[in-house]
């Protein structure tokens, strides 16, 4: 490898990266298109359907964790009730569809209900702060969990959407048929890309800046005209809506929804995705979902068997100690290392020439 080779690669990639930098939302589309290819692989015999489901899980968690990143990364707030809202999205959609409502109406209803609870928590957050707020959200999560497991409407251990989901009243997609399952996967990726774009547009707008200003210094933010009421509500409503969309995605893809999985463990795992992947970073959030859910299930289980859990735990601890803002910031180190390498190679060239 020499410096000419590196500059050549830079020249080749230059126009692309310039274009992508100008239109950051385009990168999400490109990323989504690449991910859609996964839907084809099982049909070509290159992957089994179980693996596709694991990646489907990653997209669901990525969307959920994006919302949580609005709280953790931008607003300096924490929620331990995320799982409750994912559950609301998944179970709510299923219950409404089973009641005979069209899919789209079910989605709107579920989002409205969750969003309202999110707004209530936002109001609550104006009074209660720090660990008290964190545990208050745990209360909300526990209340939701009790409702899911105890109220008969959710049907005991799980609830099933019979006959799959019906989009726009005529596109029927069922988990049972392999082709339709791939279609559902593509649908999940599309939703994730849209949510990534929405997130990017939010954090680059006055809302994102206001949330950051509020979390860094409440009184400076107020002096600038930023209303704590408005932006606490915004933060919690957005976070619950993202989590609920994650739940809706779950209902769409799996179509059998357990009532018991929406507990504190899941909320902690989703926080872990943000922490390990990267505060304030969209790709970091996806990376976090991949590290926390993907790596153990896709790689470690086959490689290490039953000690994969220990390994994931150690991984979380190490990443937090060495990359306290998230693993995605390794990118900064890579860039630094690259320019160092280039400099050294350049030096070699000049000394060789003499």
């Amino acid at each position: 490898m020499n410096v000419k080779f590196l500059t050549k690669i830079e020249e080749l990639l230059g126009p692309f990266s310039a274009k992508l930098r100008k239109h950051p939302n385009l990168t999400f589309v490109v990323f989504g298109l690449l991910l859609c290819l996964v839907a084809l692989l099982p049909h070509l015999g290159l992957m089994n359907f179980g693996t596709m489901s694991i990646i489907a899980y990653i997209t669901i968690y990525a969307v959920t964790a994006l919302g949580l990143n609005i709280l953790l990364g931008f607003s300096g707030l924490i929620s331990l009730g995320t799982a409750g809202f994912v559950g609301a999205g998944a179970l709510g959609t299923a219950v409404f569809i089973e009641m005979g409502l069209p899919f789209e109406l079910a989605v709107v209803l579920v989002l409205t209900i969750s969003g309202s609870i999110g707004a209530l928590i936002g109001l609550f957050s104006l009074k209660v702060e720090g660990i008290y707020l964190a545990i208050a959200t745990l209360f909300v999560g526990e209340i939701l969990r009790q409702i899911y497991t105890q109220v008969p409407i959710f049907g005991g251990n799980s609830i099933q959407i019979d006959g799959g989901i019906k989009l726009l009243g005529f596109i029927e997609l069922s988990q049972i048929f392999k082709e339709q399952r791939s279609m559902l996967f593509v649908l999940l990726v599309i939703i994730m890309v849209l949510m990534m774009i929405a997130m990017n547009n939010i954090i680059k707008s006055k809302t994102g800046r206001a949330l950051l200003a509020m979390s860094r210094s409440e009184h400076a933010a107020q002096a600038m005209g930023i209303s704590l009421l408005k932006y606490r509500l915004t933060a919690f409503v957005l976070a619950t809506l993202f989590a609920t969309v994650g739940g809706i995605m779950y209902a769409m893809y799996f179509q059998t929804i357990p009532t018991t999985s929406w507990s504190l463990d899941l909320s902690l795992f989703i926080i872990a995705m943000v922490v390990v992947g990267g505060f304030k970073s969209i790709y970091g959030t996806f990376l976090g979902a991949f590290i926390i859910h993907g790596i153990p299930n896709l790689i470690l289980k086959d490689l290490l068997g039953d000690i994969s859990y220990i390994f994931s735990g150690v991984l979380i601890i190490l990443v937090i100690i060495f990359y306290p803002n998230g693993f995605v910031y390794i990118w900064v180190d890579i860039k630094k290392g690259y320019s160092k390498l280039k400099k050294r190679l350049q030096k070699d060239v000049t000394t060789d020439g003499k």
Partner: protein
Amino acid sequence: MSDLFGIIFNSLETGSVYALAALGIVLIFRTSKTTNFAQGMIGTFNAYIAAYVMLSLGWSIWIVALLALVTAFLTGIIIDTFIIRPASKVNAISKQIITLGIIMVIVGLLPKIFGVASFQLPRFIASEYSLDIFGATLFYNTIFVIVLSLTLMGGMFMFIQHTKWGLATRVTASDETTSKLMGVPTKRVTMISWATAAMLGTLAALFVAPRVSVYGNMLLTVQISAFFAGTLGGFSTFFGPVVGAYIIAFSRNFTQFYISDIWGNVMVYTLILVFLYFKPYGLFGKKPTKKV
């Protein structure tokens, strides 16, 4: 009448268990500025040790309990030295997730070390020794659990209020940087706090074990209740969470018995949320002063 007394005895016992766990959580929260989600799992791990040794060597519950407390002490020190201290500069949210990492490591270790079966641990005092009070059975073991917990916690409060080490703990809890500059051994205080918290959690596990058997999630309810107790009582004092623990145990048992098994918890939680809205720092908590 017998129902009423049964509930009271039961609440006092579970309240004591919640209180032990809550005290451990507050201790860590005050000295390490983190919410320790692994509190329950650390206790569970050491309860496993007790049960395993009892099964394989046939030792009595009293001896294996002591052994578990010793291993708990060591677990606390190991966790502080190798995980918490290297992460002392990490932000508060990430630090909490480190304790999730600890949970995962322990959950992974349990079947590796002890196998997949669950274990049993007996009561400290066998169930044939009991009193009859207004038709309700009061086990001597229940009295033992309540008295020992109260004595231990009382002793800890005395220690924290009246000894040099207690003072060091209190000042580390209120301002670590200044304490360090003033020559308080904050590192040792933090380490001992983790060790003590691990022992409190283990004690809670040993007290709960006869009711639920020893398995991975045996302390889940205790752990969550302890968090709630801390919030209700206020994290800025050491005794607030203990009071909160008994309140939660009583209100939960009473609503479950007299109102509804299903909605009891939901009602209690909702009431606490409403309470928090008006007293955002708990029963005994103080609002931290802020400067503009």
